[in-house]
Structure formats: C-alpha cells, structure tokens
C-alpha cells in the first residue's frame, strides 16, 4: 500500500455543503541559520491535513504541544500563509481572495485566543477593544457602535458600564469574556477557539464553556475548538479530530471516538487523562519516550517510535487516512 497522501476527508455532510473545507493543508516553517541566514531545515508543523467543518457544528481538534493544531487554525484564518493546500469558506477559495472580498471574509471568521491577557491591548479600554472590529469595517455610527458593544458585553456576562475600564482591572475569566465579545461583535459565521479555557481555573472554565455553548445557539455559530484537554473537547464538540506531529490521525463523531477509539495514539491520550475518581481502576497505556522533533519526523507512520503495537510496515509506509465506516476517519496500519 502506498501512502495516498491526497485521501479526501469528505465525510458526507448530512446538512448540505460544509462551511469550511480544508484540503491537503501543509505548513512548513523554514529554520534559518548559519553565516548567510540560509534555510537549513524545515519544521513540518502541519502536513497534509484535510477536514470539513459543517455549518453549525463544533469540530474539536486535540493533540499535544507542537502537534500543529494551533498552526492549522491560524492557516485556515490566513493569519499565516500556507505552504500548500487549500481552504474554502462557503465555497470561496480563502487563499486567493483579495481586497474587499478578503475584508468581508475576515468579518465572517474570528478567533478567540488562549491567553486573554496577552491578546488584549493593555492601553485600550475594553469597550474600544471590543469595538475595534466595527471601526475597522466601518460599521455603524459612533453611537451605533457603542450600543453594539454594550449589548455584546451584556450577552457575554460583562457589565456594560465597565466599558471604560482597562484589561488589567478584570480577572482571567472576565478577560476571556472580553475576548469572546471582541470576536463576536462582528457577528461572524465561523469562530476558532484556540485553547480558550486552558489558562483558567476549573470553576471559571465551566462558566466559559457554558457561555460558548449558549452563544453558539444564539448566533448559529460554527466552531473549530482547539484544545489539549480531551474531556473539555468532548463536552463541547460534535466531532473530534486528533493530531499528532502535524498529521490528523483520527477523526470521528464525539461519542463514537470515545466509545471506539481506533488509533493507538488516541487510545493512549484517552487513558492518560487523570480522572477525579480515586476508585477508578483503569488500564493506563503509558507511552514511552517523547514526541519526536517535527524537523525530522520519523518515516512511515509518525507515531511508530512510541506506538505500543508498531509493526514493521509502520516504520516504512505511511498509513492512509481513510474512512472506516460512518465517517470515522483513521490513519493506522493496524486498523
């Protein structure tokens, strides 16, 4: 079997065409060094990722640090250029849009960042931070914008009278609410949530997760929810994709993935999460070793160096990412 790198990710969307379609997305970062600052190597951050995001759903993307989940999100939004591959949004090719069309697209696609402190300008009152998108896109008069900001603040659970305050006057959870208001004030169709709760305490985390779910219903949003915590992703996602070292290794409906994880990496990831139940006796799969460097990813299956069931073929031939039934996608020779 030869690695059919271009295997399509088309899980037939029951409810019409997908909102976002990612095909064979590749992002390599050059490593420069030496006397003439030449490219001496490449970080294979995202390697041939294909997926569809359906209108109104939440697609979770999980994986450990350096697996490429954040880069995937940034490339989809065109915050960083792709090396190759394509992304389409409502049928339009995201990478070829220019001028007004691109600006229009940016209104429709927004992002919520992990660290609500470093992503908010400390010298701007939060009302201005939230209104900035409206100003850039020249929406409404000054008083319309103020009204929109006040309404959005109320929607995300912030007191509108705090609009003149600065980010440092808010707690971590409140700052994340500001980040959410900033993203939603333009009424986007698609929002990437990049680790939106991992910097927050548990009691605040659940507030934000519930808020994100409520807002999705109210505004009919589509989410790409990027996180490393599988329990969090499970709670919010309709489908989940698992990434390892730049590759999508498995993708399925949430309940299906947890009931029947097929990839050995997904299985290990699931078993590694500490559960708050001291009487639980679980068979833990402790992976040996560490994630290899994305500069020189292993040949064949990238997971073979840590895989408990690696076979000879895994060391040489890259497994095909394919549908094993009902839209459950997996890339593993053993399945």
């Amino acid at each position: 079997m030869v690695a059919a790198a271009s295997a399509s990710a088309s899980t037939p969307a029951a409810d019409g065409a997908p909102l976002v379609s990612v095909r064979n997305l590749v992002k390599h970062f050059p490593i420069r060094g030496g006397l003439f600052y030449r490219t001496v190597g490449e970080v294979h951050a995202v390697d041939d990722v294909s997926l569809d995001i359906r209108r109104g759903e939440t697609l979770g993307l999980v994986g450990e640090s350096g697996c490429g989940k954040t880069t995937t999100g940034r490339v989809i939004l065109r915050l960083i250029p792709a090396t190759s591959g394509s992304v389409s949004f409502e049928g339009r090719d995201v990478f070829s849009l220019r001028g007004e069309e691109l600006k229009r697209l940016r209104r429709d696609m927004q992002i919520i960042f992990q660290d609500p402190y470093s992503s908010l300008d400390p010298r701007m009152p939060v009302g201005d931070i939230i209104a900035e998108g409206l100003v850039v896109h020249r929406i409404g008069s000054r008083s319309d914008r103020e009204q929109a900001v006040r309404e959005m603040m109320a929607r995300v659970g912030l007191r509108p009278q705090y609009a003149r305050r600065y980010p440092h006057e808010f707690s971590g959870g409140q700052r994340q609410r500001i980040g959410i208001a900033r993203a939603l004030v333009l009424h986007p169709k698609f929002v990437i949530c990049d680790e939106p709760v991992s910097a927050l305490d548990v009691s605040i985390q659940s507030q934000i997760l519930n808020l994100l779910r409520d807002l999705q219903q109210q505004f009919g949003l589509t989410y790409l929810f990027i996180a490393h915590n599988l329990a969090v992703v499970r709670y919010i996602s309709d489908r989940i994709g698992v990434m390892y070292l730049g590759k999508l290794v498995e993708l399925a409906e949430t309940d299906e993935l947890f009931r029947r994880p097929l990839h050995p990496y997904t299985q290990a990831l699931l078993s590694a999460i500490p559960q708050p139940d001291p009487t639980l006796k679980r068979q833990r799969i402790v992976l040996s070793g560490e994630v290899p460097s994305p500069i020189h990813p292993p040949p064949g299956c990238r997971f073979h160096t840590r895989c408990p069931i690696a076979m000879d073929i895994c060391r040489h031939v890259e497994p095909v990412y394919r549908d094993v039934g009902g839209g459950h996608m997996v890339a593993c020779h053993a399945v």
Partner: protein
Amino acid sequence: MGVDNHTANGRDELLRISNLRTYFYTSDGVIPAVDGIDLVIQRGKTVGLVGESGCGKSVTALSIMQLVPPPGRILPGSRILLEGVDLLSLRPEQMYDIRGARIAMIFQEPMTSLNPVFTVGDQIAEAILTHKRVGRGQAREETIELLRQVGIPQPEQRYHAYPHELSGGMRQRVMIAMALSCQPELIIADEPTTALDVTIQAQILELLRSLAEKHSTALLLITHDLGVIAEMAQEVAVMYAGKIVEQADVVTLFREPKHPYTRGLLASIPLLTSDRSVPLTMIKGTVPNLARLPPGCRFAPRCPHVMPICREKEPELATHGATRVACWLYEPAVVGGE
C-alpha cells in the same frame, strides 16, 4: 486547636503544620495568603493540597521551606514541626541543612528552577556535595545513578547536557533526580506536571509514585487538578482563599464531598463519562480579593447554600464522620434552627 485527632500518634507523624499564617504586606493592603491552616503529613504518605489560583497552596509550600519572598512574612504563632522540631525556630544555617536534605521541592516550571549555565549533572552533584560527606567522583557516580532511576536515557552523556538541551519532561525528571539526591523524608511537589502534555504527565506521575513508594518518601502534592489528586494522594486538603475548607481521605473526599466549594469544584470538571447534553455546573462569581475579604465564610458570596450566619461568622474546621469541614451547613445547632 483542631488538628487531626485520629492521626495524632507521634510515631508516624513527619510534619505537622499548625496555625500557619503567611501574610503579604503590600501597598494595596495586607494579603492573608495563608490564614491559619493545620495540616499533618504522615511518613511515606502522599497528601494532596488542592485549590485554584491564589488560594494559598503554593505559599504554604514556600512557608514550609521558609522561602517566602518579601513582602511576605510568616506570622508569630505559626508552627511547622518536622519530627517535633519547629522549623520556624531554627537559625537560617540550620534551615539550610534541612532544605534539600530532609525536605526537597519540585517546582512547576523546571526551566526557571534549573541554572541555565551549569550542566544538569553538575547541578545534581552540587546538591549531593552540599549535604553529604562524599568526594567529587562519588557525587558524580551517584548523580548518574539518579538520572538512570528517573528514566533519563544515556545518563552518562546527559550528565553533560544543559537544561535548554532537554525537553520539558526530561527537565522535570532532572528536578526529581535532584529532589531525590539526598533521600529526603518529604518532597513538596508544586504543580509538577501542569506544564507538561498529558502523555508526559502520565509518565512523570508514574515515576513520582513509584519512587516515593520505593524510598518511603512522603509527598506533599500541590495541584489544581483534582484528577491528579485522585490518582496520587491518600489524604486531601482543599484550600479556598487562604483557608483549608475540607480535609479527608481521598475516597471519602471524592465520594462524599461536603463543603459546597469542593462539591462545586468536582461538579464543574467535565468528565470523560458525563452527559454532554447537560450544561456544566458552575460556581458563580470569582475568588474574593484577599485584601478585602468579606466577613464570615470566605466562600459565602459564591455559595449556593448561603445562610445569614455565613455572612457574619467564619466557620471552623470540625470533624464530621471521616471528614473535617469548615461549613455552617454541618453545624446542627445552626441548621436545626432553620
């Protein structure tokens, strides 16, 4: 003063903290980061100290080590007894002999606690040379053996590695090797796996558990992650705003949490098995500003069961079954009047 009665037999008791108060005197006012806590650690046992940011769990650890940074001060009347000797009464040079040798500490981010300009081997060997009467050659051999024990491959070569050449997981293994170097009786691990990925976290927890068992080292495990506590600890203390609000053995705490804060905390964690269609339980509001604490119970402003007395008088830790809890709900005289 309430300290664990059922564990108060002196023989197995390694560390006893009583009425520990560590305050920070800032320009914004006095911050009672740790405000009168009692805790007993038995020899060879793992005690989990759990709570959210700012609850005082790390300051408790630093107080035991007497590494509280200014403007923080441990108040008179606080006692930290290591086998009956009050660490707070020791001279600095006496404390120097205890730190690292009898009580060692592992921090969350090993990169900031390792010296970037020395090799990891030399840093561990230095700890051995400081506390043991051995020569350089012996210290070097012991270091390599320790690196092997914590699962670092090719320890002879890695001896010469600098911290930046190692991954986060490997650096944490180096920290553990360093903590073990003088066979301490107590290791304080402050969020030891928080900066690590789950699969690496699983490795490090496994390692800590097996090493603590092998050397019968007591472990004070400080974390915000109730999952980690459930897996590692035998005894658990839950902290909120500078106070211990609930304390029990691990099974009791997770099976019958009593304090509304503990219950809220447990209910707000998304589980791998919970029903996804039901919204997560939330604890409303945020942690109070420690410089302007409300009168009465510190959790009262966020508590779903708040009663008038909660806003007036602070509840004390009291024994109820296998649990010690500080909450008016469990005081019959109060609840009975309702």
